[in-house]
C-alpha cells in the first residue's frame, strides 16, 4: 500500500531538515501507529505525504500502490485514496459542512472518472455515517468546523474519512482532545472501516487509543527518524517509561 523510502524533507523557507530519512512500509489492511516526542516530525511526515506547501523533499520516495505520491498535486493524492485527519482541523466560515462534504466527495469521484453522487444518494450516506458518529443534523448544517468544540472537530474529520472511503488513512492525533466516550466512537468508526484493502497510519501520544484500535506495528519517531519499530507492546513501554530509554538506546 504505502511505501516510504529514505524520505528526507526540509522547510522551504529555512535551511532546516525535519525528516531525516524515513523508511516505512504499510501493507494493505494493516494498521500502524507512530508515537514520538513533540516536534519529532510526525505531523511533518503527514504533510509531506499529502502535499502541503512549505516543504521540499530532499531525497527519497513515497508511493501509494506503486504510484509516485510526491509527483502528484495534493488533490490528486486525495483522489488516489490518501486521507489525512488533521491534528488541527481548520474552520471555513460560510461554507456548509454538507456542501463541503459533497463537493469533496464529488470532486474525488470526478477525478477517478466515476459518476457524481446526486443529492439524495449523498444525503442517505451522510445520514448513516453521521448517526454512527453521533453527529447531529444541526452540526451538519453549520459551516465547516466553525464553532465546533475540539472533540466535534475530530469527529467531523472521521465523518469526512468515512464519506470519502480512502484506502490510506493518516490520523494525526485524532484522539487528542476527545473525551472517553468520543474516543470510543472514533475508534469504533475506524474499526468499522478496517478491512483487508484499507490501511491506517495512526499518530498518537497515548496508548489509550491503541487499546481500542489494535495496531499491527508501532513505530517510534524521534528527531526526524524512525528509531524503533515493534508490536503493540512498544506503545505500552512508552506509556510506562516515556521515551528516555528508547532515545538512549539509539544514542
Amino acid at each position, binding site marked *: 500500500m504505502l511505501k516510504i523510502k529514505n524520505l528526507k524533507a526540509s522547510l522551504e523557507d529555512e535551511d532546516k531538515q525535519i525528516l531525516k530519512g524515513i523508511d516505512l512500509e504499510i501493507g494493505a489492511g494493516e494498521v500502524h501507529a507512530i508515537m514520538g516526542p513533540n516536534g519529532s516530525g510526525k505531523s511533518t511526515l503527514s504533510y509531506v505525504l*499529502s502535499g502541503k506547501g512549505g516543504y521540499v523533499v530532499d531525497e527519497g520516495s513515497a508511493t501509494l500502490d506503486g504510484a509516485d505520491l510526491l509527483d502528484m498535486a495534493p488533490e490528486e493524492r486525495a483522489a488516489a485514496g490518501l486521507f489525512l485527519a488533521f491534528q488541527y482541523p481548520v474552520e471555513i466560515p460560510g461554507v456548509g459542512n454538507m456542501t463541503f462534504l459533497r463537493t469533496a466527495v464529488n*470532486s*474525488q469521484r470526478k477525478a477517478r472518472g466515476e459518476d457524481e453522487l446526486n443529492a439524495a444518494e449523498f444525503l442517505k450516506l451522510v445520514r448513516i455515517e453521521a448517526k454512527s458518529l453521533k453527529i447531529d443534523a444541526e452540526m451538519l448544517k453549520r459551516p465547516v468546523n466553525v464553532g465546533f468544540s475540539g472533540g466535534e472537530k475530530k469527529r467531523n474529520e472521521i465523518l*469526512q474519512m468515512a464519506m470519502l472511503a480512502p484506502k490510506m488513512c493518516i490520523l494525526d492525533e485524532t484522539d487528542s482532545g476527545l473525551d472517553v466516550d468520543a474516543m470510543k466512537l472514533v475508534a469504533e468508526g475506524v474499526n468499522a472501516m478496517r478491512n483487508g484493502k484499507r490501511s491506517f497510519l495512526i499518530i498518537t501520544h497515548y496508548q489509550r487509543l491503541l487499546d481500542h484500535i489494535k495496531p499491527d506495528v508501532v513505530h517510534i519517531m524521534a528527531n526526524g527518524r524512525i528509531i524503533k519499530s515493534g508490536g503493540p507492546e512498544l506503545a505500552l513501554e512508552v506509556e510506562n517509561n516515556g521515551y528516555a530509554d528508547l532515545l538512549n538506546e539509539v544514542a
Partner: protein
Amino acid sequence: MEALEDVVKEGVDAETVEAVKGVAGKYKYGFATDIETEYAPLGLNEDIVRLISSKNDEPEWLLEWRLDAYRRWLKLDEPDWAMVNYPKIDFQNIYYYAQPVSMKEKPKSLDEVDPKLLETYAKLGIPLREQALLAGVEMPEGERKVAVDAVFDSVSVGTTFKEELGRAGVIFCSFSEAVKDHPELVRKYLGTVVPSTDNYYATLNSAVFSDGSFVFIPEGVKCPMELSTYFRINAENTGQFERTLIIAEKGAQVSYLEGCTAPQRDTNQLHAAVVEIILLEDADVKYSTVQNWYPGDENGVGGIYNFVTKRADCRGDRSKIMWTQVETGSAITWKYPSCILRGDDSQGEFYSIAIANNYQQADTGTKMIHLGKRTKSRIVSKGISAGHAQNTYRGLVTMHPKATGSRNYTQCDSLLIGNKCGAHTVPYIEVKNNSSRVEHEATTSKVDDDQLFYCLQRGVGEEEAIALIVNGFVKEVLQSLPMEFAMEAQKLVAISLEGSVG
C-alpha cells in the same frame, strides 16, 4: 517588523500574484458587435446637449433642465476624495451619443429589432424574447418571468412584456419613451432624489443622459414579474450615461435587476449613470445590480470607469428599500447607493459584494440618512481584493435630531487574496439624537493557506476551493439576491477570481 503571519505566508503569496495574471483573459463578455453606428460629433458643448435632447424629441423644459446642468457642470471640479487613481479624463475626447443606424427609426415591436442586436443579447444570455429566461437560467413554464429593457450604447433597443405589465397598471419602458408617453410623471419626479446639482458626475449625467429605464408601480400593485435592465456598451470611445427612474406608489412592490457588460478594449471608457427611486407609504423596492463592466486586463490596461449615483428616497412611512450589488467589473468603481429614510419607520438595507482583481480599484459603499422616527438601516459589505487591486468601503450613517429611536447596523468584512492588494474601510458616523443606536463591525482577513490545503486534501481542486471559500465569505449577501440571480452571482464570483491562487 513584519508580522509573523506575513512571513509564513510570503511564499504562497508570490505564487498567488503570479497566478492572478491569467484572469483578465477570462472576461466572458468582451466581444464587440460589428454594427453600423452613428455618433454625435466628438466632445461636449451645448450643441451636443441639444442634439441628445432632440434625438429623443424632448419637450423644452427638459432641454432647459439639461442645459442648466451642463452650465453648472462646467464650473465644477472633478472630485478627488475617493481612493482611486486614474489619469485625468479628457471630456472633449469622448462621444456622448452613439446609436446603431438600424435604431434611427425606432422599431415598433421586438420583431422589428435589428437581428444583430438580438443576437448580441442572446450571446450575453439575455434573449429579448417574451419567455421566462434570464442570463441562461431556465425556468420551468409558468414560473416567474423577467421583463427586460435592453439598453445598447445610447439607446434602448426594446422592452419585453410591456403589454402584460400594462394590464397590471405597471409602466416599464425606456426613459425616452417615458418622456414622450408619461411626461407628467417624469417631470414630477425627475431630479427630486438626485438633483442635477448633486455631484460632478450626476450633473454631467443630467446634461447628457441619453436613455435608461422608467418604472412606475401604481398604488397597491405588486409587480407581477421581476423587472430588469441590461446595459451594454459597444461603441468605442463612447460614454454611456443612462438615467433610471423608479416610482413605487403607496403599498407598491417591485424587484428590479440591473446588469451591465462591455467589450474588451485597451482604452478606458466612461460610464456615469444616475438612478432615482421614490417610495411612497408602505412601498417595497428591491434593487439588485450585477455590475460586470470590462475590468481591464491583467496589467490594468483598459476597462470602464464607472461613476454612478444611486439613491432611494423613502418618502412614505414604513417604506422599504433594499439595495444589493455584486460589483465584479470596471477598472474604477465609484458608487454609493444611498437611502434617505424620510418616512417614519422606513427601512433601508444595503448588501454589497465588491471584488477587485488585478489593477481594479473599487471605492464603494452607501449612505443611510435617517430623518424619520424609528427608521432602521442595515449595511453588509463584503470586499474581496486580489492581485494589485484596491478595495475601499466608504459609508456614511447619519441620525438626524428628529430621527429618534432609530437604528443602524453595519458590518464590513474584507478578504485579501495575496499581499499586493489592499482593503480599506472608511465609515463616517454622525448621531444627532440620543435615542438612536449605531453599531459597526469590521474585519479584514486573508484567504488562508491552511483553509486552502484543507480543501485540497479533501480532493477539491484549487479553483473550486477558492470559489468555495469566497462564496462562504459572501454568503450573507448572496442570500439577499433574488433566487434566479443568486446562482448567477455565485458563478460570477468564481469567474472573477479564477486564477487568483497559485
